[in-house]
């Protein structure tokens, strides 16, 4: 192989060529590095777009979304400025929603888009680059020298706006020229933005819907709360009312109990129930009614009460009333008054009783018979025995609630009440007297032991009264203790007497002899005439002074035929000292004798 020898100049020229090739390779290598850098940046852009998507999807509002978007344009594409524009269809202009890097671009600055339409940029899905000459371009006033714009649509394909990135005239030297290589990634960015925006709109719509629903729910809740509160108030009121009612009921019950306890002793069950169940019965008012009126009284009780301690009187009276009230209720009598030892009882009101007179008579018989029980208890208690007289009269009276709004009483008013009282005044202990009207009303079931005519005070005509000994029929009752077994005394006992009523009232110092004697009666031969049913005050004669001063009382109940001056007198009140004196003489009597 032949060696070609080169001259110095040839070698030098060859060296320079090689040198150029070497240095040229440096340029090429650098261009390769730039190319790699370009790829690197593009890769970085797509990575940054991913980051943008992650950030933007969490945006809580469109404002935040827009801000994230414009900042991400800067970060991703290393542009100087960016803005998110929305298309105003009515004005055919663009509205700035957010901007970054513009010193003078205020949000809402109107962007004319006629030139975009003219260039066909309003339709299309790809980004485009626009150089902006400050003096000739429609957007020249914005201070931009170059922009990259990409339109975005909604799901229907209608233009919604533009994403814009750019560089300004002032700082263009620092920022790389926007080149075609940026278009794909900018387009992708805008498409991602568009999807995210639609997602945000959907999210906002959903949130708005939820908010509205929530608002509705809140309103409903408020209404429900209000209703609930009203119901609660209603419930509270009702509870309070119920409580009041309960209290009232309790009070009523307590009152009823109280009334029953306090007054049930004096009122019949019917009257009591009628009043409790029908408070209107308490209203003032009255009616005419035929009733049988009973008046009872304890014989000699006044003088007896003067001899006893008040506690003994009350105890004795209560014991008596306890028994009597039970009997009266048993026979549906209405106790209208209790005045001391006297009872005013009505039969036939307020509830009508078809056989009111029979009820009343049966009741009177039962009351008299119940006196045995009363006296048994009295004896056991060391108290004197009691005797009761009962008068009955049937008449038309006015019954009803009589009184004022503060004090009301079911009562009976009429002359017949006084008549009953008069009749009662003619009784002696253990005796039941009835008027003619009662006898007629009761019918043929009565056992009449005696009858007489009296002329009570104020009466224009004599009044026939009947002494009742029993009643047949469904009651079948009779007086159990007549006590008429008189014994003839071995020595007649002198006495003085004073007539307490009748046409001889006030006559004093009259004398008489007590011939026969029983526990309750005596045959007395008076010096003069006395009227039947006359009440007498008597004193023993021929006895030591202290005994002679003891008054004892009686009622003339029968004239004995043997001499025209002898009368059967029923004791109405006899002091113990006199009783002892009588008992002593009875023990030495000749023999018992029927009257």
């Amino acid at each position, binding site marked *: 192989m032949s060696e070609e020898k080169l001259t110095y100049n040839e070698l030098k020229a060859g*060296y320079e060529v090689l*040198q*150029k*090739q*070497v*240095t*040229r390779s*440096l*340029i090429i*290598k*650098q261009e390769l*590095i*730039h190319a*790699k*850098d370009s790829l*690197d*940046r593009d890769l*970085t852009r797509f990575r940054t777009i991913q980051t943008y998507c992650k950030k933007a999807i969490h945006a809580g509002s469109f404002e935040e979304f827009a801000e994230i978007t414009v*900042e991400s344009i*800067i*970060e991703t594409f*290393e542009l*100087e400025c960016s803005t998110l524009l929305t298309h105003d269809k009515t004005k055919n202009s663009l509205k700035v929603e957010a901007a*970054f890097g513009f010193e003078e671009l205020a949000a809402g600055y109107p962007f004319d888009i006629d030139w975009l339409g003219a260039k066909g940029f309003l339709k299309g899905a790809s980004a485009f680059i626009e150089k902006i000459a400050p003096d000739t371009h429609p957007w020249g006033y914005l201070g931009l020298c170059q922009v990259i714009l990409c339109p975005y649509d909604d799901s229907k394909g209608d233009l919604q706006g533009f994403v814009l990135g750019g560089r300004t005239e002032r700082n263009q*030297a*620092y*920022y790389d020229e926007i080149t075609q290589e940026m278009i794909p990634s900018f387009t992708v960015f805008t498409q991602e933005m568009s999807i995210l925006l639609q997602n945000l709109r959907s999210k906002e719509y959903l949130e708005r819907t939820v908010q509205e629903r929530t608002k509705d729910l809140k309103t409903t809740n408020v209404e429900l709360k209000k209703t609930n509160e009203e119901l609660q108030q209603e419930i509270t009121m009702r509870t309070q009312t119920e409580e009041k009612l309960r209290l009232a009921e309790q009070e009523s019950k307590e009152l009823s109990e109280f009334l029953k306890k306090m007054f049930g002793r004096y009122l019949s069950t019917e009257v009591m129930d009628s009043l409790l169940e029908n408070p209107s019965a308490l209203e003032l008012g009255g009616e005419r009614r035929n009733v049988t009126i009973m008046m009872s009284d304890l014989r000699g009780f006044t003088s007896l009460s003067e001899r006893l301690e008040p506690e003994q009187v009350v105890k004795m009276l209560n014991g008596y009333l306890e028994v009597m009230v039970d009997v009266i209720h048993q026979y549906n009598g209405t106790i209208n008054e209790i005045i001391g030892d006297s009872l005013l009882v009505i039969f036939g009101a307020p509830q009508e009783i078809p056989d009111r007179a029979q009820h009343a008579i049966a009741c009177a018989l039962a009351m008299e018979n119940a006196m045995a029980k009363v006296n048994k208890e009295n004896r056991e208690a060391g108290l004197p025995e009691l005797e009761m007289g009962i008068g009955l009269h049937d008449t038309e009276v006015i019954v009803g609630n009589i009184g004022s709004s503060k004090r009301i009483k079911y009562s009976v008013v009429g002359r017949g009440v006084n008549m009953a009282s008069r009749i009662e005044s003619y009784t002696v202990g253990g005796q039941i007297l009835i008027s003619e009207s009662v006898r007629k009303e009761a019918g043929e079931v009565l056992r009449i032991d005696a009858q007489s005519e009296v002329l009570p005070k104020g009466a224009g005509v004599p009044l026939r009264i009947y002494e009742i000994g029993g009643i047949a029929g469904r009651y079948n009752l009779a007086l159990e203790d007549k006590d008429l077994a008189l014994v003839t005394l071995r020595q007649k006992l002198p006495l003085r007497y004073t007539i307490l009523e009748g046409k001889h009232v006030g006559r004093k110092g009259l004398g008489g002899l007590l011939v026969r004697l029983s526990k309750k009666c005596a045959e007395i031969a008076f010096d003069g005439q006395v009227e039947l049913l006359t009440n007498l005050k008597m004193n023993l004669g021929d006895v030591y002074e202290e005994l002679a001063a003891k008054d004892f009382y009686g009622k003339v109940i029968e004239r004995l035929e043997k001499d025209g001056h002898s009368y059967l007198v029923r004791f109405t009140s006899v002091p113990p000292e006199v009783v002892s004196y009588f008992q002593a003489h009875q023990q030495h009597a000749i023999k018992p004798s029927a009257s």
Partner: protein
Amino acid sequence: MLEFYSSSTAAINSKRAIAECLENALGDEKDLDCDLIIFYTSIGHNFRDILTEARRLSPNAQIVGCTGAGIIGRDGPNESMKALAIMAIKGEKNEFTVVSKDSIISFTSFEVSAQLAQELKNKNPSINMIHFLPSGLDFIGDKALEGMESVFGPEIPIFGSTSGDNMKLINNFQFIGDRILERGAIAVGFADPTLEVITQATHGFNVIGEPFEVTRSELNRIFELEGQPAWRFLTNRLGVPETATLPEVGPAGWVARELPEELNNEYGSTHILFAALNKDLDGSIYTPVVCPEGTKLWNTERDEDRMFKDLDKMVEQLIERCEGRKPYAVFHADCAARGRWSFNRVLKDEIVSRMQYPLIQDEDVPWLGMYGFGEFARLGGRNQFHMFTTSLFVILKKTR
């Protein structure tokens, strides 16, 4: 004793970005107030917003900073148009001093730097290290260092970076208080007697081909290379049109000159690099160093493997120089051209991690770095202006 806290962010809202940095840096402290904030920012941020918000959040702090092509923090590099990193410092007022000049150009590089140094010394004669952040355009780095050393002497460590933009070679900015300087200079003098700094730089480039000679020059302006207009010669040698711009030529246009042999081992190279940062209509070029006539220059070739190997070696040497001490804080300057003009994202992350992990491992050591246009790091016992290097400035507690 000075205390350092660092942070960085990619947030593009400038107010939010500085707030985020302060919160991340000083989040464990009782408040965000500190005594000095040094920040590096990309050219795209709103500087006024940064200063206003920093003042609001840290009202007692002196605030200084400059622009660069990107930042490098503990979280790695960021060359976006809106990158921000800070070093927040707490200390006594006599432990640091800040001075600035609002303009520095090639012809005034020495004088302005000397004035800055004098001001620093006047304010605090105890300054034992200077963080220097001058403009990276129309500036002569070696003359500036001469100016500094004329006041403090060659012993004082001067570390930092020249300010820049995003490789457009248009402008740069410095910040002090609420002032924004254009092509100015900032100098921060530290006077903590318990601290020292060790610095080192590496480039990892090969020289290729035969050298060519500066045949006519004036200071940093080269009129002719090999008797031809300098730009025409360079473009012709590279096979690109003479109309090509400096950024278009890029690293291919970088040149190297020989280093004294005794520095080769320390530097890991026989040559030191520089580049034209401007050209004139007459075809002359401006470099950031003085290029006397007769200087021989070489084209250079970027050697990726060597860049990594030399970096590893430099880090090993730094660790050795730490003598077992954990770095107290690290300032870092990387040439802007070693960013995206040289490496993709993965490799850049790799480069940074190959610095950070061996040096500070997983320790919470503050780290503030910037992609600038030139680096100040010591070489051969005195301060040296570099280009196309990775330069680390490791603050250490002094051994007693």
